[in-house]
Protein backbone atom coordinates (compact mmCIF):
# COMPACT_ATOMS: atom_id res chain seq x y z
CA UNK A 1 0.00 0.00 0.00
CA UNK A 2 1.28 3.45 -0.83
CA UNK A 3 0.68 5.98 1.88
CA UNK A 4 0.05 9.45 0.59
CA UNK A 5 0.97 12.43 2.74
CA UNK A 6 1.84 16.11 2.89
CA UNK A 7 5.03 18.12 3.07
CA UNK A 8 4.76 21.56 4.71
CA UNK A 9 7.60 24.04 4.46
CA UNK A 10 7.14 26.47 7.37
CA UNK A 11 10.15 28.45 6.14
CA UNK A 12 8.35 29.31 2.90
CA UNK A 13 4.80 29.70 4.22
CA UNK A 14 3.76 33.31 4.75
CA UNK A 15 0.35 32.49 6.20
CA UNK A 16 -1.58 33.84 3.22
CA UNK A 17 -4.22 31.10 3.60
CA UNK A 18 -4.74 30.60 -0.12
CA UNK A 19 -4.58 26.83 0.53
CA UNK A 20 -7.36 27.10 3.09
CA UNK A 21 -9.55 29.17 0.78
CA UNK A 22 -8.98 27.13 -2.38
CA UNK A 23 -9.92 24.05 -0.34
CA UNK A 24 -13.13 25.73 0.84
CA UNK A 25 -13.92 26.70 -2.74
CA UNK A 26 -13.17 23.27 -4.24
CA UNK A 27 -15.19 21.42 -1.58
CA UNK A 28 -17.97 24.00 -1.07
CA UNK A 29 -17.26 24.35 2.65
CA UNK A 30 -19.33 26.66 4.78
CA UNK A 31 -18.15 29.23 7.29
CA UNK A 32 -16.78 27.36 10.28
CA UNK A 33 -15.81 24.23 8.35
CA UNK A 34 -12.10 24.27 7.50
CA UNK A 35 -10.56 21.16 6.05
CA UNK A 36 -7.24 22.99 5.91
CA UNK A 37 -6.28 25.40 8.66
CA UNK A 38 -3.31 27.73 8.94
CA UNK A 39 -2.12 28.00 12.54
CA UNK A 40 -0.19 31.13 13.40
CA UNK A 41 2.27 30.26 16.13
CA UNK A 42 4.08 33.05 17.87
CA UNK A 43 5.62 34.28 21.08
CA UNK A 44 8.60 36.12 22.40
CA UNK A 45 10.02 37.90 25.38
CA UNK A 46 12.43 40.60 26.50
CA UNK A 47 15.99 39.36 26.95
CA UNK A 48 18.50 41.23 29.06
CA UNK A 49 21.92 41.69 27.47
CA UNK A 50 25.20 41.66 29.40
CA UNK A 51 25.32 45.47 29.41
CA UNK A 52 21.90 45.72 31.00
CA UNK A 53 20.02 46.68 27.83
CA UNK A 54 17.00 44.72 26.69
CA UNK A 55 16.28 43.07 23.37
CA UNK A 56 13.17 41.30 22.18
CA UNK A 57 13.06 37.88 20.57
CA UNK A 58 9.57 37.96 19.10
CA UNK A 59 8.82 35.20 16.63
CA UNK A 60 5.92 33.95 14.56
CA UNK A 61 5.51 31.33 11.89
CA UNK A 62 2.70 29.47 10.16
CA UNK A 63 1.82 25.81 9.95
CA UNK A 64 -0.71 24.86 7.29
CA UNK A 65 -2.40 21.65 8.44
CA UNK A 66 -5.30 19.70 6.98
CA UNK A 67 -5.47 16.00 7.78
CA UNK A 68 -2.22 14.09 8.10
CA UNK A 69 -3.77 10.77 7.06
CA UNK A 70 -1.96 9.21 10.01
CA UNK A 71 -0.57 5.68 10.07
CA UNK A 72 -2.36 5.20 13.40
CA UNK A 73 -5.27 7.64 13.24
CA UNK A 74 -6.92 8.56 16.55
CA UNK A 75 -10.15 9.33 14.67
CA UNK A 76 -10.68 5.92 13.05
CA UNK A 77 -9.91 4.21 16.34
CA UNK A 78 -12.52 6.37 18.09
CA UNK A 79 -15.21 6.21 15.39
CA UNK A 80 -18.11 4.04 16.59
CA UNK A 81 -19.44 3.33 13.10
CA UNK A 82 -16.38 2.78 10.94
CA UNK A 83 -17.54 5.74 8.81
CA UNK A 84 -14.13 7.26 9.47
CA UNK A 85 -11.85 4.84 7.67
CA UNK A 86 -8.41 4.55 6.17
CA UNK A 87 -8.41 3.63 2.49
CA UNK A 88 -6.45 0.48 1.64
CA UNK A 89 -5.43 1.91 -1.68
CA UNK A 90 -3.65 5.12 -0.75
CA UNK A 91 -3.83 5.35 3.07
CA UNK A 92 -6.06 8.42 2.94
CA UNK A 93 -8.40 8.81 5.91
CA UNK A 94 -11.92 9.53 4.67
CA UNK A 95 -15.41 9.80 6.22
CA UNK A 96 -18.32 7.94 4.69
CA UNK A 97 -21.03 10.60 5.12
CA UNK A 98 -23.79 8.02 4.62
CA UNK A 99 -22.67 5.94 7.60
CA UNK A 100 -21.50 8.67 10.03
CA UNK A 101 -23.92 9.31 12.92
CA UNK A 102 -22.45 12.71 13.76
CA UNK A 103 -21.41 11.85 17.32
CA UNK A 104 -18.30 14.04 17.03
CA UNK A 105 -16.13 11.56 18.94
CA UNK A 106 -13.45 11.69 16.21
CA UNK A 107 -13.28 15.45 16.75
CA UNK A 108 -12.58 14.83 20.45
CA UNK A 109 -9.83 12.35 19.64
CA UNK A 110 -7.87 13.90 16.72
CA UNK A 111 -5.11 16.15 18.10
CA UNK A 112 -4.77 17.98 14.75
CA UNK A 113 -8.37 19.21 14.63
CA UNK A 114 -8.88 17.56 11.24
CA UNK A 115 -12.44 16.21 11.59
CA UNK A 116 -14.83 19.11 11.07
CA UNK A 117 -18.52 18.91 11.96
CA UNK A 118 -20.87 20.15 9.25
CA UNK A 119 -23.82 21.66 11.14
CA UNK A 120 -26.08 21.48 8.07
CA UNK A 121 -25.30 17.95 6.94
CA UNK A 122 -25.11 16.87 10.61
CA UNK A 123 -22.16 14.61 9.89
CA UNK A 124 -18.40 14.88 10.19
CA UNK A 125 -16.41 16.00 7.18
CA UNK A 126 -12.70 16.32 6.61
CA UNK A 127 -9.83 16.57 4.14
CA UNK A 128 -10.01 13.60 1.78
CA UNK A 129 -6.67 14.33 0.14
CA UNK A 130 -8.66 15.35 -2.96
CA UNK A 131 -8.60 11.67 -3.93
CA UNK A 132 -10.86 12.35 -6.91
CA UNK A 133 -8.31 14.83 -8.28
CA UNK A 134 -5.41 12.55 -7.38
CA UNK A 135 -7.04 9.71 -9.33
CA UNK A 136 -7.13 12.00 -12.37
CA UNK A 137 -3.40 12.55 -11.96
CA UNK A 138 -3.78 16.03 -10.48
CA UNK A 139 -2.52 17.37 -7.18
CA UNK A 140 -4.83 18.30 -4.27
CA UNK A 141 -6.17 21.83 -4.75
CA UNK A 142 -4.26 23.25 -1.76
CA UNK A 143 -0.94 22.13 -3.24
CA UNK A 144 -1.66 23.62 -6.65
CA UNK A 145 -2.93 26.91 -5.24
CA UNK A 146 -0.05 27.63 -2.86
CA UNK A 147 1.65 30.79 -4.22
CA UNK A 148 4.79 30.11 -2.19
CA UNK A 149 5.07 26.47 -3.27
CA UNK A 150 5.33 25.61 0.41
CA UNK A 151 3.11 22.52 0.19
CA UNK A 152 3.74 19.20 -1.49
CA UNK A 153 1.77 15.97 -1.68
CA UNK A 154 2.69 12.43 -2.68
CA UNK A 155 3.82 9.04 -1.42
CA UNK A 156 5.13 9.77 2.07
CA UNK A 157 8.17 7.52 1.53
CA UNK A 158 9.29 9.72 -1.34
CA UNK A 159 8.66 12.92 0.64
CA UNK A 160 10.62 11.52 3.59
CA UNK A 161 13.49 10.47 1.34
CA UNK A 162 13.57 13.98 -0.06
CA UNK A 163 12.94 16.11 3.05
CA UNK A 164 13.53 13.97 6.14
CA UNK A 165 11.11 12.87 8.85
CA UNK A 166 10.47 15.98 10.93
CA UNK A 167 6.85 16.21 12.12
CA UNK A 168 7.27 17.51 15.67
CA UNK A 169 7.06 21.25 15.29
CA UNK A 170 4.91 23.40 17.59
CA UNK A 171 1.96 23.78 17.69
CA UNK A 172 1.65 20.23 16.35
CA UNK A 173 1.32 17.46 18.95
CA UNK A 174 3.90 14.77 19.58
CA UNK A 175 3.89 12.71 16.39
CA UNK A 176 4.23 9.41 18.27
CA UNK A 177 0.53 9.73 19.22
CA UNK A 178 -0.84 9.05 15.73
CA UNK A 179 2.18 8.68 13.38
CA UNK A 180 1.09 11.38 10.91
CA UNK A 181 1.95 11.04 7.21
CA UNK A 182 3.51 14.47 7.34
CA UNK A 183 6.93 15.97 6.77
CA UNK A 184 7.63 19.47 8.04
CA UNK A 185 10.45 21.80 7.25
CA UNK A 186 11.33 23.93 10.24
CA UNK A 187 11.49 27.67 9.81
CA UNK A 188 14.23 29.76 11.43
CA UNK A 189 12.14 30.24 14.56
CA UNK A 190 10.45 26.86 14.68
CA UNK A 191 9.93 25.43 18.14
CA UNK A 192 9.62 21.73 18.97
CA UNK A 193 6.27 20.11 19.78
CA UNK A 194 5.31 20.65 23.40
CA UNK A 195 6.86 24.12 23.38
CA UNK A 196 5.25 26.48 25.90
CA UNK A 197 7.11 29.70 25.01
CA UNK A 198 4.69 30.48 22.19
CA UNK A 199 1.01 30.03 21.53
CA UNK A 200 -1.47 29.79 18.68
CA UNK A 201 -2.35 33.40 17.97
CA UNK A 202 -5.25 33.09 15.52
CA UNK A 203 -7.43 30.91 17.75
CA UNK A 204 -10.67 32.39 16.41
CA UNK A 205 -9.66 31.56 12.86
CA UNK A 206 -8.85 27.91 13.37
Amino acid at each position, binding site marked *: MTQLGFYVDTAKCTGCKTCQLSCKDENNLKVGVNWRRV*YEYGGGDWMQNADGTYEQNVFAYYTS*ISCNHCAQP*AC*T*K*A*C*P*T*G*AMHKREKDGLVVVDGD*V*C*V*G*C*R*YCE*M*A*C*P*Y*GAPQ*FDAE*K*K*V*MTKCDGCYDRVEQGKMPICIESCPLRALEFGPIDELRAKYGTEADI*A*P*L*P*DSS*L*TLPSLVMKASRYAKP*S*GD*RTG*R*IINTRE*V
Partner: protein
Amino acid sequence: MHELPLVFFTVLAQGTVGLFLVLACLLMVNSDNSRQQLLNKMLMVVLVLLGISGAAAMTHLGQPLRAINVVFGLEHLSALSVEIMSTSLFGGAVFTYVAMTHFGILPKLQKLVLAGAMGLGVLLLLAIANVYTLATVPAWNSGWTVFQFVMTAFVVGIPAAALMLRTQSVLLGAYQKNADRALATLGFLVMGVVLVGYPLYLFWLGQVDLPANPLGLFEYHGSLMLARLALLFVGMGLWVISATRGSNAVVGLTAFSTIMVLMAELCGRIFFYDLHMFASGM
Protein backbone atom coordinates in the same frame (compact mmCIF):
# COMPACT_ATOMS: atom_id res chain seq x y z
CA MET B 1 -21.53 23.80 24.65
CA HIS B 2 -22.56 21.01 22.30
CA GLU B 3 -21.68 18.31 24.83
CA LEU B 4 -24.57 19.24 27.14
CA PRO B 5 -26.57 16.11 26.15
CA LEU B 6 -23.51 14.06 27.11
CA VAL B 7 -23.33 15.83 30.47
CA PHE B 8 -26.88 14.66 31.15
CA PHE B 9 -26.32 11.19 29.75
CA THR B 10 -23.15 10.42 31.68
CA VAL B 11 -24.37 11.80 35.02
CA LEU B 12 -27.82 10.21 34.76
CA ALA B 13 -26.51 6.85 33.54
CA GLN B 14 -23.89 6.72 36.30
CA GLY B 15 -26.39 7.79 38.97
CA THR B 16 -28.85 5.18 37.70
CA VAL B 17 -26.22 2.45 37.86
CA GLY B 18 -25.49 3.54 41.45
CA LEU B 19 -29.18 3.45 42.35
CA PHE B 20 -29.52 0.03 40.74
CA LEU B 21 -26.49 -1.38 42.55
CA VAL B 22 -27.87 -0.28 45.94
CA LEU B 23 -31.31 -1.76 45.24
CA ALA B 24 -29.77 -4.93 43.79
CA CYS B 25 -27.58 -5.39 46.89
CA LEU B 26 -30.69 -5.06 49.07
CA LEU B 27 -32.45 -7.63 46.88
CA MET B 28 -29.52 -10.02 47.08
CA VAL B 29 -29.61 -10.20 50.86
CA ASN B 30 -33.38 -10.03 51.18
CA SER B 31 -35.48 -13.06 52.12
CA ASP B 32 -38.91 -11.51 52.71
CA ASN B 33 -41.25 -12.12 49.79
CA SER B 34 -43.48 -9.02 49.91
CA ARG B 35 -40.40 -6.81 50.36
CA GLN B 36 -38.83 -8.49 47.38
CA GLN B 37 -41.83 -7.65 45.19
CA LEU B 38 -41.71 -4.03 46.25
CA LEU B 39 -37.99 -3.74 45.55
CA ASN B 40 -38.49 -5.44 42.20
CA LYS B 41 -41.05 -2.81 41.26
CA MET B 42 -38.59 -0.07 42.18
CA LEU B 43 -36.26 -1.37 39.50
CA MET B 44 -38.75 -0.12 36.92
CA VAL B 45 -37.66 3.38 37.92
CA VAL B 46 -34.11 2.35 37.01
CA LEU B 47 -35.31 1.40 33.55
CA VAL B 48 -37.15 4.70 33.12
CA LEU B 49 -34.11 6.73 34.23
CA LEU B 50 -31.84 4.74 31.93
CA GLY B 51 -34.28 5.39 29.09
CA ILE B 52 -34.19 9.14 29.79
CA SER B 53 -30.39 9.18 29.84
CA GLY B 54 -30.29 7.19 26.60
CA ALA B 55 -32.68 9.67 24.98
CA ALA B 56 -30.45 12.53 26.15
CA ALA B 57 -27.44 10.84 24.52
CA MET B 58 -29.36 10.41 21.26
CA THR B 59 -29.95 14.15 21.00
CA HIS B 60 -26.19 14.59 20.78
CA LEU B 61 -26.04 12.64 17.52
CA GLY B 62 -26.21 14.58 14.29
CA GLN B 63 -28.06 11.67 12.69
CA PRO B 64 -30.00 9.94 15.50
CA LEU B 65 -31.93 7.77 13.02
CA ARG B 66 -28.68 6.07 12.05
CA ALA B 67 -27.78 5.28 15.67
CA ILE B 68 -27.78 1.55 14.93
CA ASN B 69 -24.59 2.07 12.90
CA VAL B 70 -22.63 2.14 16.16
CA VAL B 71 -22.57 -1.67 16.12
CA PHE B 72 -20.04 -1.49 13.28
CA GLY B 73 -17.51 0.10 15.64
CA LEU B 74 -17.42 -3.04 17.77
CA GLU B 75 -15.28 -4.57 15.06
CA HIS B 76 -12.35 -2.35 16.05
CA LEU B 77 -13.50 -1.99 19.69
CA SER B 78 -14.34 1.70 19.45
CA ALA B 79 -14.66 2.90 23.06
CA LEU B 80 -17.90 4.64 22.14
CA SER B 81 -19.43 1.54 20.58
CA VAL B 82 -18.47 -0.49 23.65
CA GLU B 83 -20.05 2.16 25.89
CA ILE B 84 -23.31 2.18 23.94
CA MET B 85 -23.44 -1.63 23.84
CA SER B 86 -22.78 -1.78 27.61
CA THR B 87 -25.66 0.64 28.18
CA SER B 88 -27.98 -1.52 26.06
CA LEU B 89 -26.83 -4.77 27.69
CA PHE B 90 -27.21 -3.30 31.18
CA GLY B 91 -30.69 -2.02 30.33
CA GLY B 92 -31.54 -5.36 28.73
CA ALA B 93 -30.39 -7.30 31.79
CA VAL B 94 -32.38 -5.10 34.20
CA PHE B 95 -35.41 -5.40 31.92
CA THR B 96 -35.03 -9.19 31.78
CA TYR B 97 -34.86 -9.38 35.57
CA VAL B 98 -37.89 -7.12 36.02
CA ALA B 99 -39.87 -9.12 33.44
CA MET B 100 -38.84 -12.44 35.02
CA THR B 101 -39.94 -11.36 38.49
CA HIS B 102 -43.12 -9.72 37.19
CA PHE B 103 -44.30 -12.77 35.27
CA GLY B 104 -42.74 -15.34 37.58
CA ILE B 105 -40.46 -16.82 34.92
CA LEU B 106 -37.76 -19.25 36.11
CA PRO B 107 -37.67 -18.07 39.77
CA LYS B 108 -34.42 -19.91 40.49
CA LEU B 109 -32.53 -18.08 37.79
CA GLN B 110 -33.71 -14.59 38.77
CA LYS B 111 -30.89 -13.92 41.23
CA LEU B 112 -28.38 -15.00 38.63
CA VAL B 113 -29.76 -12.51 36.11
CA LEU B 114 -29.68 -9.83 38.82
CA ALA B 115 -26.03 -10.62 39.54
CA GLY B 116 -25.32 -10.41 35.81
CA ALA B 117 -27.02 -7.01 35.64
CA MET B 118 -24.88 -5.81 38.58
CA GLY B 119 -21.76 -6.90 36.75
CA LEU B 120 -22.90 -5.13 33.59
CA GLY B 121 -23.64 -1.99 35.64
CA VAL B 122 -20.05 -1.89 36.90
CA LEU B 123 -18.86 -2.58 33.37
CA LEU B 124 -20.95 0.33 32.11
CA LEU B 125 -19.33 2.72 34.61
CA LEU B 126 -15.90 1.66 33.39
CA ALA B 127 -16.98 1.76 29.72
CA ILE B 128 -18.15 5.37 30.06
CA ALA B 129 -14.84 6.35 31.67
CA ASN B 130 -12.98 4.48 28.92
CA VAL B 131 -14.57 6.73 26.28
CA TYR B 132 -12.91 9.77 27.81
CA THR B 133 -9.48 8.43 28.69
CA LEU B 134 -8.10 9.48 25.29
CA ALA B 135 -4.33 9.44 24.84
CA THR B 136 -4.55 12.73 22.92
CA VAL B 137 -6.45 14.62 25.66
CA PRO B 138 -4.09 14.99 28.65
CA ALA B 139 -6.61 16.48 31.10
CA TRP B 140 -8.85 13.43 30.63
CA ASN B 141 -6.30 10.68 30.17
CA SER B 142 -5.90 9.53 33.77
CA GLY B 143 -7.37 7.44 36.53
CA TRP B 144 -9.03 10.61 37.83
CA THR B 145 -11.59 10.32 35.06
CA VAL B 146 -12.46 6.81 36.25
CA PHE B 147 -12.50 8.04 39.85
CA GLN B 148 -14.89 10.88 39.11
CA PHE B 149 -17.22 8.79 36.98
CA VAL B 150 -17.43 6.03 39.59
CA MET B 151 -17.94 8.57 42.38
CA THR B 152 -20.94 10.01 40.55
CA ALA B 153 -22.59 6.59 40.82
CA PHE B 154 -22.08 6.65 44.58
CA VAL B 155 -22.88 10.30 45.15
CA VAL B 156 -26.14 10.24 43.18
CA GLY B 157 -27.08 6.59 43.59
CA ILE B 158 -27.01 6.41 47.39
CA PRO B 159 -29.37 9.32 48.20
CA ALA B 160 -31.57 8.33 45.24
CA ALA B 161 -31.91 4.80 46.66
CA ALA B 162 -32.67 6.22 50.11
CA LEU B 163 -35.33 8.42 48.53
CA MET B 164 -36.96 5.46 46.80
CA LEU B 165 -37.04 3.45 50.01
CA ARG B 166 -38.47 6.40 51.96
CA THR B 167 -41.40 6.68 49.56
CA GLN B 168 -42.34 3.15 50.69
CA SER B 169 -41.56 3.64 54.39
CA VAL B 170 -45.07 2.67 55.49
CA LEU B 171 -44.95 -0.69 53.74
CA LEU B 172 -41.33 -1.45 54.55
CA GLY B 173 -41.45 -0.47 58.23
CA ALA B 174 -38.32 -1.02 60.32
CA TYR B 175 -36.48 -2.49 57.34
CA GLN B 176 -36.57 0.87 55.58
CA LYS B 177 -35.33 2.73 58.68
CA ASN B 178 -32.37 0.40 59.08
CA ALA B 179 -31.56 0.56 55.38
CA ASP B 180 -31.79 4.36 55.48
CA ARG B 181 -29.35 4.52 58.38
CA ALA B 182 -26.97 2.14 56.66
CA LEU B 183 -27.14 4.16 53.44
CA ALA B 184 -26.57 7.38 55.39
CA THR B 185 -23.43 5.88 56.92
CA LEU B 186 -22.27 4.91 53.44
CA GLY B 187 -23.13 8.43 52.25
CA PHE B 188 -21.04 9.87 55.06
CA LEU B 189 -18.05 7.78 53.96
CA VAL B 190 -18.59 8.86 50.34
CA MET B 191 -18.52 12.50 51.47
CA GLY B 192 -15.16 11.81 53.09
CA VAL B 193 -13.77 10.26 49.89
CA VAL B 194 -15.07 13.24 47.87
CA LEU B 195 -13.57 15.71 50.32
CA VAL B 196 -10.14 14.13 49.85
CA GLY B 197 -10.47 13.10 46.22
CA TYR B 198 -11.70 16.25 44.49
CA PRO B 199 -9.02 18.61 45.81
CA LEU B 200 -6.38 16.01 44.93
CA TYR B 201 -7.84 15.86 41.43
CA LEU B 202 -7.60 19.64 41.10
CA PHE B 203 -3.99 19.54 42.31
CA TRP B 204 -3.22 16.90 39.70
CA LEU B 205 -4.98 18.95 37.04
CA GLY B 206 -2.90 21.98 37.91
CA GLN B 207 0.34 20.19 37.06
CA VAL B 208 -0.71 18.60 33.74
CA ASP B 209 1.38 19.99 30.87
CA LEU B 210 -1.18 21.96 28.86
CA PRO B 211 -1.09 25.01 26.59
CA ALA B 212 -3.51 26.86 28.89
CA ASN B 213 -4.18 26.85 32.62
CA PRO B 214 -6.98 24.26 33.01
CA LEU B 215 -8.24 26.03 36.11
CA GLY B 216 -8.54 29.38 34.38
CA LEU B 217 -10.20 28.51 31.07
CA PHE B 218 -13.55 30.16 31.69
CA GLU B 219 -14.66 32.94 34.01
CA TYR B 220 -17.50 30.86 35.40
CA HIS B 221 -15.34 27.88 36.40
CA GLY B 222 -14.59 29.29 39.85
CA SER B 223 -18.25 29.66 40.74
CA LEU B 224 -19.06 26.33 39.04
CA MET B 225 -16.61 24.42 41.25
CA LEU B 226 -17.82 26.27 44.32
CA ALA B 227 -21.44 25.54 43.42
CA ARG B 228 -20.59 21.91 42.91
CA LEU B 229 -19.00 21.49 46.32
CA ALA B 230 -21.72 23.50 48.07
CA LEU B 231 -24.55 21.57 46.38
CA LEU B 232 -22.85 18.27 47.06
CA PHE B 233 -22.10 18.87 50.71
CA VAL B 234 -25.33 20.63 51.59
CA GLY B 235 -27.38 18.06 49.64
CA MET B 236 -25.62 15.01 50.99
CA GLY B 237 -25.10 16.55 54.45
CA LEU B 238 -28.75 17.41 55.08
CA TRP B 239 -29.83 13.84 54.45
CA VAL B 240 -26.88 12.14 56.16
CA ILE B 241 -27.08 14.22 59.33
CA SER B 242 -30.84 13.98 59.74
CA ALA B 243 -30.81 10.27 58.92
CA THR B 244 -28.08 9.44 61.42
CA ARG B 245 -30.00 11.44 64.03
CA GLY B 246 -33.07 9.27 63.63
CA SER B 247 -35.23 11.02 61.03
CA ASN B 248 -35.53 8.25 58.47
CA ALA B 249 -38.86 8.70 56.74
CA VAL B 250 -39.15 12.30 55.50
CA VAL B 251 -39.46 12.05 51.72
CA GLY B 252 -39.20 15.76 50.90
CA LEU B 253 -35.79 16.23 52.47
CA THR B 254 -34.22 13.29 50.65
CA ALA B 255 -35.82 14.38 47.38
CA PHE B 256 -34.25 17.80 47.91
CA SER B 257 -30.89 16.16 48.70
CA THR B 258 -31.05 13.94 45.61
CA ILE B 259 -31.80 16.88 43.33
CA MET B 260 -28.95 18.87 44.89
CA VAL B 261 -26.35 16.15 44.43
CA LEU B 262 -27.59 15.58 40.89
CA MET B 263 -27.08 19.27 40.17
CA ALA B 264 -23.66 19.12 41.85
CA GLU B 265 -22.60 16.31 39.54
CA LEU B 266 -23.96 18.13 36.48
CA CYS B 267 -21.81 21.16 37.42
CA GLY B 268 -18.80 18.88 37.84
CA ARG B 269 -19.40 17.26 34.48
CA ILE B 270 -19.74 20.58 32.65
CA PHE B 271 -16.35 21.51 34.11
CA PHE B 272 -14.98 18.16 32.95
CA TYR B 273 -16.13 18.61 29.35
CA ASP B 274 -14.81 22.16 29.31
CA LEU B 275 -11.34 20.74 29.99
CA HIS B 276 -11.21 19.11 26.56
CA MET B 277 -7.94 20.36 25.17
CA PHE B 278 -5.10 18.81 23.20
CA ALA B 279 -1.55 19.01 24.50
CA SER B 280 -0.79 21.02 21.37
CA GLY B 281 -3.63 23.52 21.82
CA MET B 282 -4.76 22.95 18.23
